[in-house]
């Protein structure tokens, strides 16, 4: 699927299994530069990185470190997403995410921070399209 966001997340903490919770977690950093195409229209003289684009950054990070056993699973839903502070051109997003199984599905829970504090908390739900 084509993405409206140019920025690619960089791994800053390699994915690893968390001893007690068994979750598969990793850390990422994403630089949102002024030449993201969305800023031209969101908004012409008031550039704010759209919330759905923050979600897109989380999704790209999540899909870069799918946990063992979740390969082939696709995004089925946004379970919940809360936006707390705005993201502006030039911001650096820190993303802490963790994958955990939910029955047959997988949940990716992520916290997104900028240097001004928490920007968003997001929970994505992934499901394997069984061929049946």
């Amino acid at each position, binding site marked *: 699927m084509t993405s409206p966001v140019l920025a690619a997340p960089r791994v800053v903490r390699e994915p690893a299994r968390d001893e007690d919770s068994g979750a598969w977690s990793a850390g990422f950093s994403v630089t949102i530069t002024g030449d993201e195409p969305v800023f031209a229209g969101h908004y012409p003289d008031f550039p704010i990185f759209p919330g759905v684009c923050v*979600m897109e950054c989380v999704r790209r990070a999540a899909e870069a470190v799918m946990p063992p056993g979740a390969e082939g699973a696709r995004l089925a839903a946004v379970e919940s997403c809360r936006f707390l502070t705005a993201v502006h051109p030039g911001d650096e997003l820190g993303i802490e995410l963790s994958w955990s199984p939910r029955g047959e599905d997988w949940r990716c829970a992520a916290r997104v921070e900028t240097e001004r504090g928490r920007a968003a908390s997001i929970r994505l739900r992934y499901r394997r399209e069984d061929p049946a």
Partner: protein
Amino acid sequence: MITTEGVRAALPHRYPMLLVDRVTELGPDAIRAIKAVTVNEPWYARLGPRATREDLAYPDFLLIESWTQTAGLLAKRLAGDGVEGQVMLFGSMSDVGFHRRVLPGDTVEHHVRLERAVNDTMIFEGGSRVDGEPVLTVGRVTVAFRPGERPGADTPDPHPGVVSRTGGR
């Protein structure tokens, strides 16, 4: 019915992020609008010489943005003039399900219903269809109006979330 020029006057969004083409129905607490998807969407500009069907699937998070802009039109109408110049914030969303790919040539029909409104906070729900088939379901999106703040203004944004300025152009 709000025409395209009406949509453009009501929303501060502009190319490439103005994602509502026309409002087809506008009731006291519900709205329907359409967004046509063409092979010329700006996002496809980066595709290589050969594109797969998957490459041409419309970005699903932009379906959410298109739906929330439709909700924004209803929110502005419900809030009336009291919020002129205020900022409309999308604070949160939950249970947003994706059901089918949207492809060039599809016309997406959004339907949004107001579930609850208390002073400056509103909660909407609904979904989107193509040819009557559900492509998106939206459990809940919350919207609030806050005094207009511009980035770099000294007062920190209390809760800017996804900001869309309601001030007239």
